[in-house]
């Protein structure tokens, strides 16, 4: 009879670890020495301003939707630090591949507020993006932009360009093969790409525990052969630091990174959703104490870099900017119906000329 060896006597052939990064406590206190850039108060103020802007913009967008002037819209309430932290770590020449909830990153990259409104208002002209011409539009089929990011990064590698592809998606997206296929390939070729999971705990009504049994989402990088790090996604300083490090490593040829930004979706999934159906309000209420804007404000106030007057001025500036964008959005005239044929092919095949004419004459 063969002897049964206890499992713990089998040799260990690999060990893995996942690190967690946080610098600011929910009350704005320092939890561990922050990275050097944190002494650049101007930078932190710009992160703060960007978060406040997108929160106010989201509020306005929802109001427009509720009054029938915008289509379905996804707010990033409570998650602003993730997209802002990541986008602020990118260079212009890098390529952003965002998901539908990453307006904050797109705005940081130069996309105009009225363009975002046009897009969600159902007008393709919203995709005449004023952001970098090479950035991708926000992706609606969850996770399907991850292979694009790997392709973009492979192009950079092939051309020896010191550029990085930065791809954002949610926790639900990590359940898709697309995401793992892309990470696996990126690992094989040590591609200059950074994958960022905005883990807001929910994929519409499905909580993380029904999405995955894995302890962290960051560890999904381990199977793909590169570093995954978990970051406090409500800490803008930690997000900016993690993204800066990951992007620098990718740019230097040290391969891809995965960042799991742990945050919480304080709002409904979209304006078409009612989160109260599946999520107790007490849970949401309890998470408000972690939210990123108050936290960074408390830190800045503690450094004497922010005060009530500055806050009032910022709020007023945001309102003016948003109001002007809404005005431009609402004033945008209708689009000629036959333009649906524009940009379908580089040159419209003549066989479709009759269809285009039909639209022109009958609509």
């Amino acid at each position, binding site marked *: 009879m063969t002897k049964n060896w206890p499992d713990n006597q089998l040799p260990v052939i690999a060990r893995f670890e996942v690190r967690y990064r946080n610098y600011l406590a929910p009350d704005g206190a320092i939890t561990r020495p922050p990275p050097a850039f944190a002494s650049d108060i101007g930078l932190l103020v710009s992160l703060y301003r960007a978060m406040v802007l997108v929160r106010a913009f989201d509020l306005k967008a929802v109001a427009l939707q509720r009054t029938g002037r915008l289509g379905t819209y996804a707010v990033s309430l409570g998650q602003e630090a993730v997209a802002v932290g990541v986008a602020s770590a990118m260079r212009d020449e890098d390529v952003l591949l965002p998901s539908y909830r990453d307006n904050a990153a797109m705005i940081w990259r130069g996309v105009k507020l009225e363009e975002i409104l046009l897009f969600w208002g159902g007008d*393709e*002209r919203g*995709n*005449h*993006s004023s952001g970098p*011409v*090479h950035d*991708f*539009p926000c992706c609606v*089929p969850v996770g*399907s932009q*991850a*292979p*694009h*990011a*790997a*392709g*973009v*990064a*492979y*192009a*950079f*590698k*092939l*051309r020896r360009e010191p550029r990085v*592809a930065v791809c954002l998606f949610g926790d639900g997206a990590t359940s898709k*093969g*697309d995401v793992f*296929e*892309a990470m*696996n*390939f990126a690992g*094989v070729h040590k591609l200059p790409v950074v994958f960022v999971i905005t883990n807001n705990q929910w994929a519409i009504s499905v909580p993380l525990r029904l999405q995955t049994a894995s302890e962290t989402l960051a560890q999904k990088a381990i199977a793909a052969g590169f570093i995954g790090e978990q970051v406090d996604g409500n800490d803008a300083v930690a997000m900016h630091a993690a993204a800066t490090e990951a992007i620098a490593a990718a740019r230097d040829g040290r391969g891809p990174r995965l960042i799991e930004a742990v945050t919480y979706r304080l709002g409904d999934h979209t304006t078409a959703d009612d989160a109260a159906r599946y999520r107790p309000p007490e849970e949401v209420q309890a998470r408000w104490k972690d939210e990123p804007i108050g936290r960074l404000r408390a830190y800045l106030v503690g450094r004497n870099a922010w005060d009530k007057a500055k806050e009032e001025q910022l709020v007023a500036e945001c309102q003016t900017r948003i109001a002007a964008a809404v005005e431009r959005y609402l004033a945008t005239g209708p689009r000629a119906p036959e333009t649906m044929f*524009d*940009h*379908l*092919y*580089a040159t419209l*095949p*003549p*066989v*479709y000329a009759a269809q285009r004419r039909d639209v022109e004459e009958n609509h």
Partner: protein
Amino acid sequence: MPQVTLIEAVNMALARAMADDAGVVVLGEDVGVNGGVFRATVGLQQRFGPERVLDTPLAELLISGLCVGLASQGLKPVGEIQFMGFIYPCVDQLVNHASRLRNRTQGRLSCPMVLRVPHGGGIRAPEHHSESTEAMLAHIPGLRVVIPSSPEHAYGLLLAAIRDPDPVVFLEPTRIYRAAKGEVDDDGVALPLDAAFVLREGRDVTLISWGAMVRETLAAADALDTEGISAEVIDLATLKPFDEDTVLASVAHTGRCVIVHEAARTGGFGGEIAALIAERGLTSLLAPIARVTGYDTVMPLPRLEQHYIPSVGRIVAAGRAACRFN
């Protein structure tokens, strides 16, 4: 000029495109050292290096999605899927991204990619290796679906597909990869996309086909000829967008039409051609439009596949019936 097989013509076109344009990148499963399961990419990795002739992990969605990313950066990716039965994970990327990247960015980004896929049965392959679901792809706005029927067409149309500024699915007729031989001049000259080819002029009936079925269709035209029936043979070549004018002109001339395809009948592309003729060529018809197609069954395993694939006899019978109708 040398006689080459269709698969060799594909290889010649790939090599030519890669030599002409440093942005052309070939990727897929086993395309490198192994030269592809059908040997379409043989020798390319030795010549152009492993960065431009890339063995990908075994992940079809990835291959198509990488192509979108590469193409968005101005490269010209040519992805290979080993068999049509494995294209379905790519359909997500084709429908949602490749075919509409230009449109959804209002021209800011484009997707000049090619996805090469062996198409159809008749090679005694295992299950899932013999599918012909081109109609599904031809339904997608913004895509091009191209299928050659000879080595000359494979060379010229593949070059055109690679040079095209939009995404192209290039379906290669597996059954005639080696059976079709022809003289191909490696002159770098492309054939036109979106254009059907009149392979044989005729008076009495128009036979329309594409891909491997063109061989049986031409043989049927020969047979009909011995019966005194003069058949015109059209190779559609590009299914999306397809050359409506050539089809309508031919039917206007012959008054009769038989559409031949290997794919299952229901929802097959033959229905689209028949609808076009019904809409815009009805008055020239002297007989009902006939379709000779695969059956609405799963593509059978090798022992029955020759009964599924339209035979010369079935095409001849349809052509004869069309001509006798009054």
